[in-house]
């Protein structure tokens, strides 16, 4: 067989492809967002739900001692269930700031939701297509992430906050 450039290219490409597959086999595909606890949150940028000019980013969180980022939507029933805990958290404790990220929702419904149940949030961000939430490692709502002023995730609550987790949050921020 004569060696020519196209042959070399085809062979190398095939070898490259097969090695990628080989490496692909070694990767752990069980993506578990619990493992995000202890790691730093990635950069983000989210605009206020009713005011596009107002926004918040990871830099703003450094000013707060603790921040709870809560992902919610008006169409999500468990979010209604956990809402009273968020309300009492915001009423009882001034150490912690709560940021709500409104996930794949309609603006009117989200505002009505907060009007009916009260607004525990210091800032409500808009995430119409769900991309911001995904970058936080969220795969369903409600979910909440507790972050300290070094932007390290210290707690991650998947599903609605209940009494036990509510106490846990209080303990973590003391």
């Amino acid at each position, binding site marked *: 067989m004569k060696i020519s450039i196209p042959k070399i290219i085809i062979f190398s490409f095939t070898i490259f492809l097969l090695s990628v597959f080989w490496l692909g086999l070694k990767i752990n595909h069980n993506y578990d967002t619990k493992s995000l606890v202890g790691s730093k949150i990635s950069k983000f940028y989210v605009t206020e739900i009713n005011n596009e000019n107002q926004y918040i980013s990871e830099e703003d969180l450094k000013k707060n001692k603790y921040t709870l980022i809560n992902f919610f939507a008006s169409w999500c029933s*468990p979010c209604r269930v956990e809402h009273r805990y968020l309300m009492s958290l915001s009423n009882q404790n001034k150490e912690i700031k709560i940021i709500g990220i409104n996930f794949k929702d309609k603006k009117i419904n989200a505002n009505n939701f907060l009007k009916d149940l009260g607004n525990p949030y210091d800032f409500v961000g808009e995430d119409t297509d769900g991309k911001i939430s995904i970058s936080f490692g969220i795969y369903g709502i409600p979910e909440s992430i507790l972050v300290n002023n070094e932007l390290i995730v210290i707690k991650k609550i998947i599903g609605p906050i209940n009494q036990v987790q509510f106490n846990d949050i209080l303990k973590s921020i003391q």
Partner: protein
Amino acid sequence: MLSNIGISLVVLVLILSFLIIYTASLDLKTSNKVIKKNIYKLSLFQITFTVLSFFTLIIGFINSDFSLINVYENSHTAKPFFYKIAGTWGNHEGSLLLWVNILVIFSYLFLVFNHKHDKKFRLYTLIFQNILILGFLFFLLLNSNPFNSIYPIPLEGLGLNPILQDPALAIHPPLLYVGFVGCSIYFSAALASLLSDYGGRLFAQSIKIWVKISWVFQTLGIIVGSIWAYYELGWGGFWFWDPVENASLLPWFAITALMHSLIVLEKRNTLYHWVIILCLSTFTLSVTGTFLVRSGILNSVHTFASDPSRGIYILLFLSFMIFSALTIFFLKHKKETYNFNLRSRETFILSNNWFMAFFLVTVLIGMLYPIFLDVLTDEKISVGPPFFNIVIIPLVVPFMVLMAIGPKFGWIKSQKKIYNRILLLALNAIVINLLIFYFFGKYSLLSNLIFIAAIFLILYSILDIKKFFNNKNKTELPRIISHLGFGLLVFFIGLNHQFSLEEDFNLKVGEIKKINNYKINFEEIKIKESKNYKAVIGNFKLTNFDNNFVQYLNPEIRIYSNPETLTYEAAIKTKITSDFYLTMSNVSRSDYYNIKFQKKQFMIWIWISALMIALGGFMQLILKKNED
């Protein structure tokens, strides 16, 4: 007991494969014109034992013989009889046995039905096919043995995943396997053709029928899978550009290209090496797809319990296949000169190949890019419908136009004047599109072009059918049906996309929801006990204000006992112009149910036109005899 029988049969097949390779290699050296009788005998034994081993496994499933791990893990005594049988291929190990069966069956049929062709070519094909058979047999025995036994014998099985308990899904894997594994025979034949210098027209004739058979089965398999997704998954869609769907599309693009260029090879005795490349890549892509799905590299609805060792074996064998194929190809490759006139049928057929190659590369990139990124940079992304829609849809416009006018050109150099007709039909298509646009709703420029091209192709095909009835040229009809099917498919998908209605909301019993001119009344909830599941059935009354049309929809939430799983059954009412599609899911700790209501236009026509594409291929198989 069954375990021993099964393993013995598989080992016998393995020994026979070695024997066949050995005797075939000996026979290659003799100067006889015909293949030795004992090769036929060995092959007959091989196919008999293979089929018997498959029946052994089926018997294990029918009798719920839980001494086999495979039956224990995938079946249950309470399962309906039909799904017990379907359970045989509804899992990795069983489907691999089916895979081996198809390899062997095609090997035997190719040997027996090609007696007119060159001896050396047939023997080489047999040898290569048996190397493939050996590869998969070793895989089966060492890594994924469906006949592994378990002791003590469990009293009850774990059951088959309920969403797989569906008639469409029971036949989806066998169809796809015949389609994908059937490609193996012309992979082997292509290598044999290179080694025995048996190329050109005769080679085309020897593999033509097998290409058509596997094309029909692949097409049907993909359609049935899509129908299953629509009825069972409850998302209301029929194509998601899911990685596994993409994996099934890759060989389909290659085989469709092959089917077209094979015609050129047969009629004009050119494009030989291109045909060889397509033969080799079709099966290689099938195995690549299998690798990606079974190894767990791709995540999708088709998750088999993934196991890295499985992936490593398939990958090694795949590498072996690719490198042997490449080496043989480069060793035997000769320069071919192409001499095509622009206005000839072969040029247009070649243009089909360019489009297929483009679609193939697009889907391949969309599928592999996330894997590359994950492996090389640890970044996780997913490539979804927007990418494929943006890249592929615009190209469908010229593709359909060429599909319509290409077959009108004669071989070598066409003198026919067809411009008047093209102009006339294009004008008609534009007018029809404008009527749809004007009366039913607005859509983008690209959608306009899609509709125009689709209508153009449909009109052209209808005119062709009319002509067919005048001069009864049978060879043209299958092609017309397939092309018409494709035009209709794009047309109806376009309408479905433009004019469907979708709404998500929460509702509790007694409440009413209004959407456009529809009113949905959630009347009541009923509980029904069935053999292997309990169902919560919602009763929804759908009223159309405009014509006071009333329709009841009954979606279900099923709680299966073995294994304990929750499934959501969509309520689907199919009518000629549209489907009503309603799914309901429970919201925990609440009286509310989450409802998804969709009005999907022309769904039934999408299935019919897709089936027409396959029907065209099927007609070619039947009409073949009369043609000769």
